[in-house]
């Protein structure tokens, strides 16, 4: 935590606030999908709930960025008021750990597209384990649970990994990230 600049923390919180709102906005959509398809409805769009981990880690590139941003986004959702309550902070932490573990495996050095997609899948794995116990997936048929798991993995890779990278890259183009790792890399690339 000590090698973090305070600026990075506040920017990370600001990103988390924006996506906390986005997360909340997607809850009713998930609810509608669940109404039609059952618990699997959430899994189609589950990746959206991991996106801030990917974006924050990709921009700031410091240990803990993925975990912290997801936790703060969850905290913001609690502050605004949501269905799952303070427990959501725990959910956020669990999702953050999944992505963080993947970045940790590259020693927070590699931020290529495949790593970002793997991080999205990492969140999918941890969140699924949590959901398995807390939401009672154990009561569902095995094939259905397996289908849920794979759809969530794909959703994590595509929505969180791919879309997260695309969003961050277009942010870098605007020049607001010049004092962050991603902005510096972007400048170096364009200078050469």
């Amino acid at each position, binding site marked *: 935590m000590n090698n973090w600049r305070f*600026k990075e923390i*506040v920017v990370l*919180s600001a990103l988390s606030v924006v996506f906390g709102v986005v997360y909340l906005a997607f809850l009713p959509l998930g609810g509608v999908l669940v109404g039609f398809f*059952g618990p699997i409805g959430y899994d189609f769009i589950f990746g959206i709930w991991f996106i801030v981990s990917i974006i924050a880690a990709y921009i700031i590139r410091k240990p803990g960025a993925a975990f912290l941003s997801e936790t703060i986004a969850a905290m913001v959702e609690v502050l605004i008021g*949501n269905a799952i*309550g303070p*427990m959501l902070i725990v959910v956020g932490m669990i999702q953050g750990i999944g992505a963080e573990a993947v970045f940790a495996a590259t020693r927070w050095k590699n931020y290529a597209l495949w790593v970002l997609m793997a991080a999205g899948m990492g969140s999918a794995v941890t969140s699924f384990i949590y959901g398995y116990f807390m939401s009672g997936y*154990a009561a569902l*048929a095995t094939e259905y649970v397996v289908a849920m798991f794979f759809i969530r993995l794909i959703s994590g890779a595509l929505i969180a990994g791919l879309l997260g990278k695309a969003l961050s890259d277009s942010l870098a183009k605007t020049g607001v990230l010049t*004092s962050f790792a991603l902005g510096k890399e972007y400048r170096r690339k364009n200078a050469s």
Partner: protein
Amino acid sequence: MLLNHLNPSIKALTVCIFIVHLAFVFEPMPVFLFLIWTIVATFIFGNVNWKKYVLYFLPFFIFAFGMLWTTIAFADTSEHTNEVINLLGLTVPLDSFLVALALSLRILNVAALSLMFIFTTNTVDFILSLIQQLKLPPKIAYGVLAGYRFLPLMKDEIKIIHAAHQVRGVNQGKSLKDKFSQYKRFAIPLLASAIRKAERTAVAMESKGFTGDRNRTFYRQFFVTKRDFVLPGILLLGFWGAWFL
């Protein structure tokens, strides 16, 4: 009112502990009884606007209904007995129905516990109490508070971006496809302005002497008193009562 004056951290922990406990209950009756108990306790011990409460609560009936029918439809029937019941002309294994009912009641119960917390807790108090009771690093906590403060500002920001697009004659998005590309046009400027604001705020805070040190003083202090353990007591009583009844 009692609930509104409890220590926010202890209240949050209490709610979390009971939500975890609910995950181990697969019978409908105890969950139903505890749900009633939670709602009654919220209104007796908390100062809650019931109209707003109902409005927040209603969407969960949709979630709960989705859970109900899918758990029946996709149930793991291998260990179930052969008893069946008639449900709207369909024969359904009794065990599947009971588990499904328990799971959907659980959703409602978790919602009731969460609403109990949300409707009786001030957000800034919650963060301050997290620093003071649960040792959240002030650096993160004040970062979150600063970020949270941006929320109303972002609403204005959206209006400004909207006006800026309008004045330049960009299409306003009638069809679904236009609406989608409109979101894309909004996302980047909104995020960029949020990052700029955050950077400025951070610099301002540091220039005024914010170090994020744990050894700081607080204008508003929070303590844990005996009173804070009344809520866990009430809920535990309800949980046991529901379980043994």
